[in-house]
Structure formats: C-alpha cells, structure tokens
C-alpha cells in the first residue's frame, strides 16, 4: 500500500511520506466517484438531448414520470451517503496530522518576507532549505515575523499557515531521499512567488555529516541560555532569585495549573506565550509580575529561549 497510489497515477509527483500516500489514495477515491457521477450525468444528458429532441417525433413521450418523491428521496439519500463516506475518510486522515509521533524531531521555522529561516536544535541554521533525514519523523514549529505565510511541501501533501504572534506545527516522516519543492502558499506581498525553497531528504549518515559540517554558534539551547541571562530572565527564574517565579526545570511537557483554575500542557506554544504575553496565562499561586517581552525580542530569539527551556528537562507525553 506504501506508495502504490502515487505510482498508479502518472500525473502526480510521488507522495513521499506515509501521509502523502494516503492522501493520494483519497485523491483516487475522489476522482473515481467524480468520474462515476460525471459519466452517468453526461450519458443521461446526451441521451435525452438527442433522443428527445423536438425533431424526433417517434420518441415515446407518453407516461412521463409524475410522482417524484421516491426518485428525489433516492438520489438525495444516495448523495448524502456518498458524501458522508468521503467526509469521514478525509476527516480521519486529517486528524492524523494532529497526531504527532512522540519521537518526532523538532525543527524551528521562522518565516519572514520573503524567506524561510530554519533552525535545527543543534544550532544549525538554513535559509530557504530544510535538510532532514529519511525515515525519521520531523516536527516543525513555525511562526512568522511579519504577515501570514504558509509552509507547503507538495511532495509531502502537507501545508500549514504560519502566523505572527503564535506558533503552528506540522509533522511528516519522509520515506524517500531526494530534493522537493518548498513553497509559500499564502500570499504575503511582493516576492511571494520567490519565497520558495528546497526540502533535502538525506540518508541518515549523510545527514549526520551535513549537521556536523554546519557552522554553529552552539546549539539552539546554549544560545538560548545566553539570551536567558542577557535578557534578565534568570533574575527571577534563576536560582537564588529573591522574586518568586515558577521554576522552569522539568516544565516542558508538564501540566501547569493556571490562576483561572484551568490546566494546560507546557508545550512550545505555551512557553512562547508565557514569554511574550505572560499576563494571559498566570501560573496558579503566583503574582502577575512578569514583564511582557512582546515586541522586545525577535522570533529567532524566542525560538532559542524555547529550546533552552526545553533543555532544562521535561518531556512531552510523560506525566510529571
């Protein structure tokens, strides 16, 4: 079942992930249903138009169908049932996109007019390119510095808008090495057409080599640690601080009680919101003292601090 749907269709670029193959199968299903309907409809239209043309006096026009309830109900129900099936099929596949595998490697993407900035956890940076290894799930944590963009990899059949002020995620697991198109798919200004790039999927050893060869200022986390000190975060959140601030060790992935009584998982988006808009979600039992960093630090810097906080321990999906 792996890639046969893509191979079966000569028109399509091959779907290069498991999700993509499923999408291609769905596509075939949609095409097949459509062709069925069209063939039936066009056959009837042509047949009636020709056979019942005014010039054909021999056609039997007696016994015209009068009562229509049965017919109407029949074709309405048939339509509804077919649509329901397609809905369920599409919905289940869609929900897979929200089911991020636990071992997915995080990579950070910051979009800006008109380029894609990629940061690997090890500190490797890329512009308009994303190198990833084959057979390894990858999770992209994306945000925009300015307007709405959209991260689109046709070969993976995957796309998601990238927004300013919040982070969005997609994931995929490439099954085939190669170079694939990356497009910005949300109109974003003058050079929207040029905001394209390459997804480079490599075999694991080549990928390791590539990682090692990049010029790195330290890992994302270590860069984040420096920022953490420079920006004064350690003043409250560090050891020996006189101010009572929530501890960050083991925070990532844990459940946090908020002052309004709700609970939230401390994922990347939570950490980012806590940095940029701390008053929105105040930890239970703490005062609203933290200054908001919105507008004071760049997207790149936010990404590094998030990486640093994650490095302080904690894990997604593991109860703390």
């Amino acid at each position, binding site marked *: 079942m792996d890639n046969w749907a893509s191979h079966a269709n000569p028109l399509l670029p091959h779907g290069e992930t498991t999700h993509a193959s499923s999408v291609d199968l769905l596509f075939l299903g949609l095409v097949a249903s459509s062709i069925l309907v069209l063939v039936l409809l066009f056959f009837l239209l042509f047949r009636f138009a020709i056979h019942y043309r005014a010039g054909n006096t021999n056609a039997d026009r007696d016994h015209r169908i009068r009562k229509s309830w049965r017919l109407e109900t029949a074709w309405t129900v048939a339509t509804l049932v077919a649509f329901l099936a397609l809905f369920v099929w599409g919905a289940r596949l869609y929900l897979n996109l929200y089911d991020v595998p636990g071992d997915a490697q995080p990579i950070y993407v910051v979009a800006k007019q008109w380029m894609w900035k990629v940061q690997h956890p090890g500190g490797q940076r890329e512009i308009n390119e994303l190198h990833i290894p084959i057979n390894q799930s990858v999770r992209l944590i994306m945000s925009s510095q300015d307007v709405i963009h959209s991260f689109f990899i046709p070969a993976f059949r995957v796309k998601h808008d990238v927004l300013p002020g919040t982070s969005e995620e997609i994931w995929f697991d490439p099954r085939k090495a190669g170079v694939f198109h990356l497009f910005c798919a949300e109109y974003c200004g003058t050079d929207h057409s040029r905001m394209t790039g390459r997804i480079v999927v490599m075999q694991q050893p080549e990928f390791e080599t590539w990682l090692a060869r990049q010029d790195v200022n330290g890992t994302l986390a270590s860069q984040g640690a420096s920022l953490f000190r420079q920006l004064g975060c350690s003043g409250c959140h560090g050891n020996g601080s006189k101010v009572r601030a929530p501890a960050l060790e083991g925070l990532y992935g844990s459940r946090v009680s908020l002052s309004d009584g709700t609970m939230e998982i401390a994922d990347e988006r939570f950490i980012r919101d806590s940095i940029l808009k701390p*008053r*929105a979600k105040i930890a239970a039992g703490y005062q*609203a003292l933290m200054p*908001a960093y919105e507008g004071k630090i760049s997207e790149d810097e936010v990404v590094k601090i998030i990486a640093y906080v994650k490095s302080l321990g904690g894990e997604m999906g593991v109860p703390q």
Partner: protein
Amino acid sequence: MHKMPDAQPAFQFVDMRQQHDVARLGMWVFLATEVLFFGGLILSYSAYRTGYPTGFAEAARHTKIVIGTANTAILLTSSFLVAWAVTVARLRDSRFAALLLWTAALLGVVFLVLKGVEYSAEFNEHLLPGFGFAFSGPHIHAAHLFFSFYLVATGLHAVHVAVGIVVLVVIGLRAHQRAYSDLYHSPITVAGLYWHFVDLVWIFLFALIYLPGRGG
C-alpha cells in the same frame, strides 16, 4: 370617506394597504441588515472579551457610567415619545404627534451632546485609540482593544442617531402639516421602527460596554 390629497398609493401599488405593508416590510428587512452590521462588531468584541476578561473588565471601569446611564434613560424616553406619536398620528391629531416627534429628536440631540462631552473627557484622559491613547497598568493591549471597540461602536451608533434625528424632524414637519391619518401613516411607522431599533442597539452597547467589571 374624506380622502387626503396624498392618500393615493404610488403607481406600483394596488391600494394604500399594500403600500403600507410594503413600507413596513422594507424597514424590517433594512433593520435585519443593521442587526448583522452591528452584530459582526458585537461578536468580535465578545470574542476579544472572552480572550481578555480581566483586561476588558479593567478597561470598562474607566467608562463614564453616569453619562452612559443618563443616555440610556434619554433614548428610552425618546422611544416612548415616538411610539406615542405613531398612535396619535393615526388619530388625525398630527400637530401633537409633531410635538412628540420633535421632542424625541431634541432628546436625541441631548444624547449626542452628552456623547460629545463624554468623548472629550475620554480624549483628555488619553483613552481614545488613534488620539494619543495611553493606559497605565499591565492590561494596555486589552484596554486599547476595548476602547477601539468602544469608539467604533458608539461612533457608528451616534451616526445612526444623527440620521434618526433628521428623519424625526422631517417626519415631524410633515405631521405638523397634517399629512398623516389612519389611511396614510407608513412614514411615521417606519421612522418609529428605525428609532426603536437605534434605541435597542444602544441598550446592547450599554450592557456590553459600560457594565463589565462593575458587578460585585
């Protein structure tokens, strides 16, 4: 039965009753569009209020509740006068109807004057976005959003009140000229509908804008 000079229906209508029905239906459809117009704004406001409950409550405490309440009473009174005028006009007592309508219009003017006083006070307190907004405290973004909605919503409402005042004055003039009777009173009916609607919108705005954060 004595026929008034302009008690002839317009050419596309069969009789006065059809003309009256058409005028009323037309005004109701128009009011439906207004519901959707203000509704979009109110929905957006509600979305943000759910997102920033503390901030919006904090900001709302800076609204001028006394003026707001007075304005609510003024509009309610004027609506009552207009309703009275509609009834009275049908009884051929048009001159009294004119008086009622003009008083209602006057109340509308008082409403606008008070609104002006309110805006000018808020301008001095730097509470009007786009006009030197400044807000101390942690909820500056929420306050900015709140006052943006406040300004847009009450500003649009004020425009509608102004239009209503003109309509009431003109209809009042016609009533004074004895143009209306039981046979022909659709203009005053639909003007009344419009004015009541403007009043109703204000009630919603009052509740949503002035009252949050002032509860127990």
